């Protein structure tokens, strides 16, 4: 576990800190996330998700839920427990290795790719991206949403509906 925290701790800390400005709240959230990683570890299937992707998904969901609570937005319905991690058969072609992921990113329109980097790498909120790029907030939201859907379609298309997962090269 110590090695797991050593390897993935900075990833989780980064995901949380990009969304949670309060230092102490962020530390508490990281503790909650690793608790959930422990509870959910039995559901991790390396054929479906890389280890980093699996932990990142838990961290993102927790951080986004925390933000929604802070903003007093209604809680989103939780995904069904058993389908939290998509089953290979039910979600054909989601697995990907790093090269495949980067290839999909490169095939997105330039502007969408730029927004992906600002959002996923630099952790900017949509409002911050809108401020930085001068684009209307609505355009940023739409481009990111459609970009994500498009990226999934590209990955699924490339795999012929049954993408070969290679999680070792992703984490």
């Amino acid at each position, binding site marked *: 576990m110590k090695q797991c925290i050593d390897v993935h701790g900075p990833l989780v800390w980064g*995901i949380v800190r990009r969304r949670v400005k309060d230092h102490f709240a962020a530390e508490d959230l990281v503790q909650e996330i690793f608790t959930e*990683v422990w509870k959910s570890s039995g559901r991790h299937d390396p054929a479906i998700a890389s280890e980093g992707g699996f932990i990142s998904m838990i961290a993102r969901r927790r*951080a986004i839920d925390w933000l929604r609570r802070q903003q007093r937005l209604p809680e989103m319905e939780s*995904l069904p427990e058993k389908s939290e991690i998509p089953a290979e058969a039910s979600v054909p072609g989601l697995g990907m290795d790093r090269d495949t992921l980067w290839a999909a990113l490169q095939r997105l329109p330039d502007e969408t790719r730029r927004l992906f980097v600002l959002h996923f790498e630099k952790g900017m909120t949509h409002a911050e991206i809108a401020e930085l790029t001068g684009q209307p907030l609505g355009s940023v939201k739409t481009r990111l949403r459609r970009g994500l859907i498009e990226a999934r379609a590209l990955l699924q298309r490339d795999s012929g509906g049954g993408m070969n997962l290679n999680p*070792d090269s992703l984490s």
Partner: protein
Amino acid sequence: MLSRFEELDAGRVLGDLDAEESAEWSELAQQLGVSGDASLDLLAAEFEAALSRETAPAMPLGLAERLCPVVEMPAKAAVVPEDSKVVVGPWIGWAAAACLLGLLVFRGGDTEKPTLSADSRRDALLRQEAGLKGIPFAGTTGDFAKAGGEVVWSDGKQEGYMTLSGIPANDPGQYQYQLWIVDPDRDALPVDGGVFDIPAGEGKVVIPIDSKLAVRKPAAFVITREKPGGVVKSAQEVVVAIAKL
């Protein structure tokens, strides 16, 4: 209707649904008899893991130890390939249980904050890296003419602290202070070093630096006054203090 749900579901994954869209998502999910698509969650997570890992900030000093203070991994159970990747395997359950037990004991209740104070962490950093030297802050003008203190920063640990004095206390609801790290080798734009407050009635305050991106060779540290929550790019309308190497 399905494509609208798909777009809203991507919004759910990206965390950008407002109250109206959340309600619409719930309504459409009910009408269509579907729920959120975990494949979008996972794709976003894989993107974030892949894109942000190299620039992920180091965890605060001591946090990893507090998460898992005493776990020793059995050699046979921990599968650590040569490239240092860690496999979340069967060991993780009991190991995490031991870890969390330690965590609960350490925390000693929900209200206690076991975190070391910023000045203790600063002192620990200085002990660990004897070569680190404080870079003095110089105040600017007006209310900030008397601003002073110093900053220490470790490139290796991506960790640093400001010890500040003479900066007026702020009302976080009106404005906050924000640190910018100038690193010309990295980018023309300064890196956000975190938003912070100066409490009233304290002569000297130690503030941990919260760099959002990896800083390789800082040339200067600049404190500005910004709107609550800070900004992505500072217009530097109110510069409080500067520390130059």
